[in-house]
């Protein structure tokens, strides 16, 4: 029998489409960044909000633990979590806190830190929010805890509260 290529192509095409649809149904469609835990962060460069100092992933390798916290002066829950960050920075020497200032103005960010205290070892600038997105952030506040191999060991979506705070202490103990 002669094979009709046209028919074969059409049929395989249709089968392929339908199969993809079938597999697509099984996927969880909501974009979620919760499962980023266990992944390594990709390389980045972060400029300080106040001067031209830069840090990159190499800098973080020197720290035993790093907590990257995404915040903005306009974000109310960020104020609520701020005291835990201050506690963390004063109590634990093995953890360094990096702040990434999300879609904010320099002057407002500095006022914010002056009024509430500055828990950060370094405050990076992310005026258009792109750097935060590359870290898998979709809203603030969010925080990610890294070990010295740059693996994400904990991700906190929303403000840090007492439970999350205790959890962080347990991890770095």
């Amino acid at each position, binding site marked *: 029998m002669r094979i009709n290529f046209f028919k074969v192509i059409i049929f395989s095409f249709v089968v392929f489409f*339908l199969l993809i649809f*079938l597999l697509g*149904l099984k*996927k969880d*469609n909501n*974009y979620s960044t919760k499962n980023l835990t266990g992944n390594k962060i990709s390389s980045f460069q972060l400029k300080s909000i106040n001067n031209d100092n830069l840090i990159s992933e190499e800098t973080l390798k020197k720290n035993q633990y790093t907590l990257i916290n995404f915040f903005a002066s306009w974000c109310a829950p960020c104020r609520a979590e701020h005291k835990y960050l201050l506690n963390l920075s004063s109590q634990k020497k093995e953890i360094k806190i990096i702040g990434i200032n999300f879609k904010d103005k320099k002057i407002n960010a500095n006022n914010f830190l002056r009024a509430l205290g500055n828990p950060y070892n370094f405050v990076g600038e992310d005026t258009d929010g792109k750097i935060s997105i590359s870290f898998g952030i979709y809203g603030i506040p969010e925080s990610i805890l890294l070990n010295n191999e740059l693996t994400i060991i904990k991700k906190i979506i929303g403000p840090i509260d007492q439970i999350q705070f205790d959890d962080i202490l347990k991890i770095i103990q």
Partner: protein
Amino acid sequence: MLSNIGSILVILILSLSVLIIYNSYLDIKINNQLIGKRIYKLSLFQITFTILSFLTLVIGFIFSDFSIINVYENSHTAKPLFYKIAGTWGNHEGSLLLWINILVLFSYLFLIYNHKHNKKFRLYTLIFQNFLILGFIIFLFLNSNPFSSIYPVPAEGLGLNPILQDPALAIHPPLLYVGFVGCSIYFSAAIASILSEYNGREFALSIKTWVQISWVFQTLGITVGSIWAYYELGWGGFWFWDPVENASLLPWFAITALMHSVMVLEKRNTLYEWVIILCLLTFTLSVTGTFLVRSGILNSVHTFASDPSRGLYILLFLSLMIFTSLIIYFKKRKKEFYNFNTNSKETFILVNNWFMVFFLATVLIGTLYPIFLDVLTNAKVSVGPPFYNIVIIPLVIPLLLAMTLGPQFSWINSKRKKLYKTLYILTGALIINLLLFYFFENYGFYSNLILITATFLILHSILDAKESIKNQKKFEYSRIISHLGFGLLVFFIGINHNHSVETDFNLKVGDTKKINNFLIYFEKINIESNKNYESVTGNFQINNLKKKYIQYLNPEIRIYTDPETLTYEASIKSKISYDLYLTMSNVARSDFYNIKFQKKPFMIWIWISAIMIAIGGFTQLILKKNEN
């Protein structure tokens, strides 16, 4: 009580479908030209019960019968009557019942209005249409029964999503459904035509009206959806290339191609195979769109009804549909030879078809690519306006030219005679563009070309209209109106795109802000209690400094109670030449409100043009009715 009546009616419709299929099958074997009386009777019962089942659900909604889960989940006693009724199809189960209603309605109308046609063809159509009905009734019954009851009966319902409580959205689903589900009848007819080896021209005559009806409704449905998005979603745009909008656009491209090719089949008895393919494709795309929207495989404003188990059923049904039609098509297909003259109308109609297929492919790729990539590589991407703009906009220019020149040719072969007229019009279009360029300052190269070609189409259509009125050529009206509508649509979108002003800022009560020649003054805030929501209204004065007059805009933040939701109502002042568009949202823990202010030229004209395209189709239907 209502729930039982509804369920019984659904079972009756299901049994009637089986009976109709069985009796039609027996009737095909009887060698005469008359369809048995029994089939007419069964069909009449079927349509009656179907409409009754829908009315039952509507009554359930009107009287807030919360013993029906569907009513409990989607309605509330405090809702205005209009939205109680609209709530019937504002949810998955109810809309599926509406879907079945349209399937049955078209099945019945096709049966009684096509008595001149071959019996075998009609019966096969009826059989396949009833297979479709059967498939959807089983789906409804097993997975999405709108009449499922709940016990104990809740005292109050959960309410309809407030974003859906809008007049445009109340009529949007029924319009789209008539458009999309209406395609089913020529899907069935196409299979019937292959099986009964029906004559191409006769086939074209039998489906033409149905194609036009569903085309008109699809066009209107999409337009109304777009109007709703503009007024309700508060983004100030009217087309977002959202995957679900695209899903509605896919069948529209196919049906637009079909509507043009069917004329070739009618007049020249050629392109039979292509018309069959388009018939099959249109409904297949409609069901694919339904699958994409209802299964939750896409994320968008329409995912009100996502549920993977539904997706699985629709996918199964879709596969069955595609494979059955492909197998029948390949088994029975006949080779056709085409002989077209370049200077003929049919060639230009083919050109139209190539454009439609191209747009269809573009939108299909843009919509499905993210799904494919996600499934195959786990990467999340989204395809947005830049892709569509780059791929589609340049092609609109030759499309507009072809739309202008194509209709000037006659069937089979024509001599080029009115070249000078075309040249005059083209010059006119160039001059108009120069004037626009002068008044509105500069814009891009493509924008210029698009405005020139659009003006060319508009001017040509207007002159055509004058001529056809003079010569009493009524059959040209519908084409002229639709093409003129399309030309205007592209023209106004072009201007709107190039001259919209859009700004975003924070403002306190009592503050002013100057944007271009508008001075915006935030006068005060009103808080009000309404029947099912609380509203925070801002009073704004917009002072046009150039033309020295003041307009008042009152955007609103609504806090709905059942279910608790915040919506932002844009305040829009439409004028002939532009729309002012203002939305406000609260900034947490501050006195400031975030204000989005836009000036959008010629918005009204975009709607008018889109509706004009649909009116063109209506004209054809009315004219044809008068001929009969």
